[in-house]
């Protein structure tokens, strides 16, 4: 009897979450799945068309281009941001005076709103007035038209993606501080140098954290929207920066094709899920969990 009562109380306490999940997540999710099989233009009732939206996606060249842009961006930005965040965390894990200040300074950029960031970076990458080209020019390096040349535009966004590594850095830092000191002492006794300790102690010990950040990075980079939307309206030049989420947004709100946009959303969900599972599978042998 008491067990039942406990159960009821438990459910009662979980009810706000259950309600929130049902109303704000499960219902919209299921609705979008339904809409993906319909013609739906917001103000008219959805009309069932079976798998037509999915079949149309197969032949949609802009869909292919935006998907390719997104995957290329993710494949460059995730490793780069991971390496950068780990290096930064390693640096900020050293015992130096005023470290709290440095940690704060390096974390602050990730708090800047994306739209403000986009406007800021437009200035930095400006071909003629930009700080970056000013610096490159002074040391005799080429000054590419970052914003108007398709060969550079995606790289511009990849470089900017490093700016937001503050969150990942904090998580790495927490992971680094969890590495038992005794392992480093043992490595010292074995005569390991700094690189040896990093490679054989630090990296294996924070490998679950790396995996977590990589998975989150993959998901985040596949959903990149605000920066390219602000910096490269319409995915200019020549749709070289037209990302999947931008096409999805335009399809839903500019073209009023909610059904087709929902189908795009579910395809992206499938791709994200597949890549996440792949990351988990590939990392299985390399991720070290304490206690098994």
């Amino acid at each position, binding site marked *: 009897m008491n067990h039942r009562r406990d159960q009821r109380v438990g459910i009662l306490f979980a009810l*706000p979450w259950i309600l929130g999940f049902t109303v704000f997540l499960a219902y919209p999710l299921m609705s979008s799945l339904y809409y993906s099989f319909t013609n739906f233009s917001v103000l008219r009732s959805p009309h069932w068309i079976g798998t037509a939206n999915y079949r149309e996606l197969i032949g949609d060249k802009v869909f292919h281009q935006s998907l390719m842009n997104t995957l290329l961006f993710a494949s460059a930005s995730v490793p780069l941001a991971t390496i950068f965040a780990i290096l930064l965390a390693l640096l900020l894990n050293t015992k130096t005076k005023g470290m709290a200040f440095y940690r704060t300074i390096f974390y602050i950029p990730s708090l800047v709103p994306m739209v403000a960031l986009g406007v800021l970076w437009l200035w930095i990458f400006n071909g003629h007035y930009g700080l970056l080209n000013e610096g490159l020019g002074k040391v005799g390096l080429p000054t590419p038209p970052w*914003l108007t040349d398709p060969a550079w535009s995606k790289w511009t966004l990849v470089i900017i993606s490093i700016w937001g590594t503050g969150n990942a850095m904090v998580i790495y830092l927490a992971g680094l501080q969890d590495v038992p000191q005794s392992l480093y002492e043992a490595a010292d006794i074995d005569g390991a140098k700094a690189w040896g300790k990093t490679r054989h102690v630090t990296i294996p010990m924070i490998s679950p954290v790396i995996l977590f950040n990589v998975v989150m990075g993959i998901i985040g980079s596949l959903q990149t929207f605000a920066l390219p939307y602000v910096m490269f309206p*319409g995915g200019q030049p020549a749709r070289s920066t037209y990302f999947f989420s931008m096409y999805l947004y335009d399809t839903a709100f500019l073209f*009023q*094709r909610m059904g087709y946009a929902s189908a795009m959303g579910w395809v992206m969900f499938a791709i994200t899920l597949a890549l996440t599972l792949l990351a988990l599978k590939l990392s299985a042998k390399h991720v070290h969990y304490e206690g098994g």
Partner: protein
Amino acid sequence: MNAAVAKGLTTCGILAAGLFALVGSERAASRQANSDRIVVTYWEKWTGDEMRAMQHVVNAFNSSQNRIEVRYLSISGIAEKTLLATSGGNPPDVAGLWSDQVVQFADAGALLPLDDFARASGIGEKDYIPAYWNEMTYHGKLYAFPTSPGTSALYVNRALMPPEYDSPAKFPKTLSGFDQFVKRASRRSANGTLETAAFLPRDGFGSGSWPYMFGASFVDGEKIDVNSPGNLKAWEWVHSFALRFGVRETQSFRSGFGNYSSPQNPFLSGKLATLMDGPWFSNYIRLYSPKTDWFAVPLPYPDGHPELKGYTVLNLNTLMIPRGSKHAKEAFEFVRFVQRQDVMEKLCTEQFCNSPLTNVSQKFLKGHPNKFIWLFDQLARSPRAVGPVKLGIWGQIGQEVGNAVDVMDLGQASPKAALDIAEARLTEQWANYKQQVLNR
């Protein structure tokens, strides 16, 4: 345990009440501000000077009577939000959208036709410049009323003009003369890089509408026609600028353009000697480069085609009443107030625009902060004043054609091939739109 249950119930109750309040708050707050007045919610896209100018109009309306209170909210992404709010059954009473959204919103059944209101209040076609009136109607129905409109003309920086082009009278009137001017007035540095381009057709208001200047259109009736000979001629002319300055050089040069509303705007920074823009641009000159000595002229017309003289691109800010508005009658009273000549002229003066009304006072023309406002007014009355095509896929047309010009400028495809691709894609999109939105 009973205490725990009570706590749980209280928490749930508070959360449920919060949720309920959240859902109902917008409606409640927007309609009960002042118990003896009906509150009309008005969403508008403007910020800054434009927002303040409309705030003056709203204040004047609210003080002019004691039955209605217009609540004015500046909203970003207004088109999307209005559409979704309309779909959810809780739209604003008035929405300040652009005229090129009339068709898409009307097709979606999101707008209230205003013909009956207009008839009852005694305003109609005769009161508006024909090209603007045309923008507010669709399939014979009236869906919007104007606030501040715009037409395009060419702003010229006198300091960058060779002597033979330094006044409106001397400025070329035809395309061949204009092309010679571009050659003469563009400047390169000693190492060959472009310092000043006399003109670049891909920058400025109306830069996506060049086929109109050549007498062509994006559509033939209801058929997408973006690869017609007229379109091809227009975009080849646009592409010729990238070829004459050099594709890489043009890319590099344009990458140095700063934000539109900043001192680094290419016209204000002297990178462009001329810029096609609307009357409001004089406000940006005033704000960011007040010493610039400028004049405005109409755009040139193709040689041997005087019938194409007076070409201008127009667009206007409008007030629409979404379907489902709770106070449509009161909302229209506000819309009607804005249409008064004195109110409209004050608004358009403060927003640096011409007036959409047929009757324009001398006080407005003489006291306007844009010294060439008479030209913008004149151009709006030209039979060659053209707006967006009346198809619900105007947004897609702009996007696809813009991409086609990118592709041709980058040398990825010939102008014909790039336009053929755009034509094929737009034809498919139009078929989809007809089926999904128009049910035909």
